[in-house]
């Protein structure tokens, strides 16, 4: 399946140094790419006439604490033309930023805000990088593995200033 997948073949031709791992699990294709070419790869997957991944189904972070690099940003793409899904992943270290793909898929706008809010992964060139679920002024990133489930402040109710 890996050999027959058009996206994998094209990516390996165009960005031979960046594609670090291609995996198939339960018939789902996952490509791990390096962070520095991520934006170009996304742009290519979007605009290539044979691929046309016009749909960004999902974008989320995963925390592998205490591993390093700590985070993964996962992109779920969907091509209406080929009726095919593709999972794209990139590894991100603590306090490192990722280039925003908002200029390619507008859908990324809120997804990136969410990843920023809950994991603390900053996205460069994002037009409006604010917290989305937690309130402004909240400290900490709830979906990180070192954040307690009940929250660090569960017995100290905090009322934000209005």
């Amino acid at each position, binding site marked *: 399946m890996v050999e027959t997948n058009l996206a994998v073949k094209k990516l390996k031709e165009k960005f031979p140094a960046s594609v670090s791992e291609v995996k198939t699990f339960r018939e789902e294709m996952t490509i791990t790419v390096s962070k520095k070419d991520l934006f170009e790869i996304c742009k290519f997957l979007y605009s290539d006439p044979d691929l046309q991944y016009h749909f960004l189904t999902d974008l989320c972070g995963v925390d592998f604490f205490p591993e390093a690099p700590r985070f993964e940003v996962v992109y779920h793409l969907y091509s209406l033309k080929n009726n095919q899904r593709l999972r794209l992943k990139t590894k991100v270290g603590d306090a490192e930023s990722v280039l925003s793909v908002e200029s390619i898929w507008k859908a990324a706008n809120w997804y990136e805000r969410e990843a920023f809010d809950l994991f603390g992964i900053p996205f460069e060139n994002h037009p409006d990088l604010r917290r*989305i679920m937690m309130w402004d002024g909240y400290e900490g990133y709830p979906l990180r593995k070192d954040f307690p489930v009940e929250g660090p402040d569960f017995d100290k109710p905090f009322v934000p200033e209005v």
Partner: protein
Amino acid sequence: MTINMGPQHPATHGVLRVVLQLDGEVVVKATPHLGHLHRGMEKLAESKTYHQAIPLTDRLDYTNAMGNNLAYVLAVEKLLGIEVPKRAQYLRVMMAELQRIAAHLIWLGTHVLDLGATTPIFYTFREREDILRIFEEVAGGRLTPTYLRIGGVSKDLPEGIEDKVKEFIQAFPDHVKEYETLLTKNVIWIKRTKEVGIISKEDAINWGVTGPTLRGSGVKYDVRKAFPYSSYEEFDFEIPIGSVGDVYDRYVVRLREMEWSNAIAEQALERLPKGPIIADDPRITLPPKDDVTQDIAALIRQFKIVSEGFYPPKGEVYASVEASKGELGFYIVSDGSNHPFRFRIRTPSFANLSALHKMIEGSLIADVVSTIGSIDIVLGEIDR
């Protein structure tokens, strides 16, 4: 002028706050603020076993509990690589489609109520009540039935329920006609919805919009057809689409969808296969309840699964269903332990709402109410 619409505003369908910048009565900029209903579900599920996370999913989009259950159990089943018996698959389809009708009925009633028509909500809630009664008999719960289990469903149909479902299915097409006589050619309804809240095909795709909102713009994308799950490939149905992408088109698409859902539920009931309702895998699925009270081995199995759960292989899966609002997907990362390492929920309303400003900027403030109603958001699944 800047005004706050919400968080406590009946037309925002929950606790959504939209900050509107106005020039007279025209909306210049609309900024939604979320998080009022944020319960940290993704975090919570990481500390639960796979079975324990099922009730959480009911509370995502609380109008579409069966569909949410389905998306989650499909993801876990994919991760485990287990087969679900045919009867369970058909029961799932039947329940999911009845739930879709119920969800669309809430949408229709409240959306129309927002725009000033008080009558239809009494009609739609009458039919919704029938569906909830069916759910109550089948699963024991009305709003949050938690009927599905990993590997199948929790119990078989009770005696005599087939007739009640059949009765509902036979009567429902006439009810849709009733709603249509109230609305489809109603001049006020048309004036409030035609050419309002338009989003083009390209914009809708780029903003990640799915479900009836996307199909109203004329894109034929439905997960049931694109990636058939739970035997959907064995049912005959069509995907209704609109052309303009306005509020009216979304209304028509949803009405047609209810009729098709009714047809699918009918096919599922007619062709309902006989056989087991849950896969028999002692490491994963719960034993039949009667055995638990009589057989020590079954009791041990029940105890092990409830208290400890099971250990799926390492890996990651994404499974999605066509929920009533759009594509609902679960992305589960497993590290081989008995609880999910990452539990990501891709909810349709979240993406659909992010495109809201595209639909309302430049239109009148009254159209904001109309547009929010038409994309059918549920804050439970936006904030999670």
